[in-house]
């Protein structure tokens, strides 16, 4: 009898049996475009650098050693911690964090504004936000440089209305890099927050007001927690690419704003490059990002279980 009546588990495995083959393309895409490149990079980070760029298939920890330790000019001194790259990393993390914060401060009200428009006009506003992204990032970054350079339109117009007498030295500063990152990644903040706010049930705000919460308290206690997934998604989407960005720092920043992205980028250019070192730096960067995301996911899971 038991063989005749299909059990729920039996049904389930039969269902999975059909779905399994359908998932092959998905697994293939993930494997080829995600797992394989990361594996390649991991392998390269343990190879030996070749003189004119490229690698020799000799496994070594030299790249990681170079990143973290300083053994003197000829490599024969007792190792001390090498601060150069750690400093670049910290600065990059700081820059990316500030860029994320600025995007959040500007992006949240923007997303809120769009999500609270009548449904017919929301699409127009979203379209306006994404318009700059129809143009290549490199061109946009160069244009930004043009706008803020010493005798560019920004300074000229500020001087012509008499707000400043000398042009502001904006190019090659941290500020310019921030501006570049902000400009590059703002929509990545706006879109997920928009999606969350659009789904937000405004009756919750009414219920909070009904229970004596002021507008500010309602925002803090009800709105922000409810749209938090959108905010987190936006922050991750801005923070991660900002951390690895090299166009904005290269074009808008100076030597003092040298960042991870530029460091890695340099390692893969021409005969001056060092592929294993670039790969190692990329691996370290990825590990850092993964640690941050894992901590977040853990905290989130604990919050949900509560």
């Amino acid at each position: 009898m038991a063989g005749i009546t299909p059990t729920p588990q039996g049904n389930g495995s039969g269902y999975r049996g059909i779905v399994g083959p359908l998932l092959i393309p998905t697994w293939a895409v993930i494997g080829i475009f995600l797992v394989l490149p990361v594996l390649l990079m991991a392998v390269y980070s343990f190879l030996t650098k070749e003189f004119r760029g490229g690698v020799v298939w000799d496994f070594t920890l030299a790249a990681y050693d170079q990143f973290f330790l300083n053994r003197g000019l000829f490599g024969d001194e007792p190792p001390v911690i090498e601060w150069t790259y750690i400093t670049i990393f910290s600065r990059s993390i700081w820059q990316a964090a500030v860029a994320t914060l600025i995007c959040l401060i500007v992006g949240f009200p923007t997303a809120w504004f769009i999500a609270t428009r009548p449904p017919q006009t929301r699409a127009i506003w979203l379209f306006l936000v994404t318009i700059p992204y129809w143009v290549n990032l490199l061109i946009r970054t160069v244009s930004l440089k043009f706008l803020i350079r010493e005798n560019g339109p920004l300074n000229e117009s500020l001087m012509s209305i008499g707000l400043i007498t000398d042009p502001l030295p904006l190019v090659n500063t941290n500020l310019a890099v921030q501006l570049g990152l902000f400009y590059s990644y703002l929509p990545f903040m706006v879109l997920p927050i928009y999606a969350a706010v659009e789904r937000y049930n405004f009756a919750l705000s009414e219920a909070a007001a009904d229970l004596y919460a002021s507008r500010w308290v309602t925002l803090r206690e009800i709105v922000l927690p409810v749209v938090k997934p959108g905010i987190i998604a936006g922050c991750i989407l801005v923070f991660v690419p900002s951390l690895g960005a090299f166009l904005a720092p290269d074009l808008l920043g100076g030597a003092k704003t040298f960042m991870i992205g530029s460091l890695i980028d340099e390692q893969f250019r021409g005969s001056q490059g060092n592929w294993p070192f670039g790969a190692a730096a990329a691996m370290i960067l990825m590990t850092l990002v993964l640690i941050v995301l894992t901590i977040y996911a853990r905290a989130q899971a604990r919050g949900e279980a509560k």
Partner: protein
Amino acid sequence: MSTAIDIRSVVKRYGTATALHGVSLSIADNEFFTLLGPSGCGKTTLLRCIAGFEDVTEGEIALFGQNIAGLDPNHRPVNTVFQQYALFPHMTVLDNVAFGLKMKGVPLSDRTARAGKMLEMVHLSAFADRLPAQLSGGQQQRVALARALAPEPKVLLLDEPLSALDLKLRQAMRVELKTLQEQTGITFIFVTHDQEEALTMSDRIAVMSQGRVQQIGTARDIYEAPVNRFVADFIGETNLIEVTVDRIEGETARVTLPGGHAITCPAAATTPGKHHLSIRPERLSLATTGDLTATVERVVYLGTDLQLLTRLPTGEEFHIRLQNSARTEIPAPGTTVALHLEEGAARLLAD
């Protein structure tokens, strides 16, 4: 008794659509006041105006004598049980219930205790640590009720708070709500489209239709002395038949029924001519000679009652309810019966 809420000729328009056409109501302190009416008649809109979520287009609302026009919802001593619950999805049931107390600055231990007591009242103590999404619709509705009651507002607005509960629970909650309202002295404005709920719980009922208050009165007033066809038809079951008013003598009207028999009934501001008469189906009895004659078409057995679906000689349908006792003789379909109108069974309607 003092007045809790005074609503004076309130008009609410949404663009060109008018949801409330000059509503005036006065609700006494500690009254259980019910807004009863069909879907879309403006009940929720009126509550939202009182709670402060909507500005009234014209007219004004006073709370304990104070005009509350400019007051934000969070400054009105009024709490709402929302029709769609609107529970905070990221907070546990207990935190939801304690939210209003927290906003009022009640210390943590105090508010936890009070919220716990509220949950006990709605039989949800076991669910205190759950999130709203982990509750059934009826349970969510009870959380919404507990949340609105916890801060002990002066006025509680309840927008169909029992609609998602099953019959047994609904009946139990009716009794609990009524007891609670009497004990706490909170003024209840209760919205429902369930007339049984309205009739059993309310001190007074306002029957609404299409943005207008049709009649205000006790359950008895509204059931026994409806002022117009809408109220007579909406509350309970009734037979509306067309009659001719022959003459009016002071407070009484002399009316000719279909079939020629004449009766007298309260004039209710009518003038001689064609009018509608409301006759409740349970206010009739079978007789040998009666005020009306009708042909039985069907007999429906309802347990405690028998319902006779009959037709008058004029062709109008006419319902009769008879108590199902051993002595009741059930007329067979096709037979003609004579009906006797009980004292006060017939009500002339003004429109």
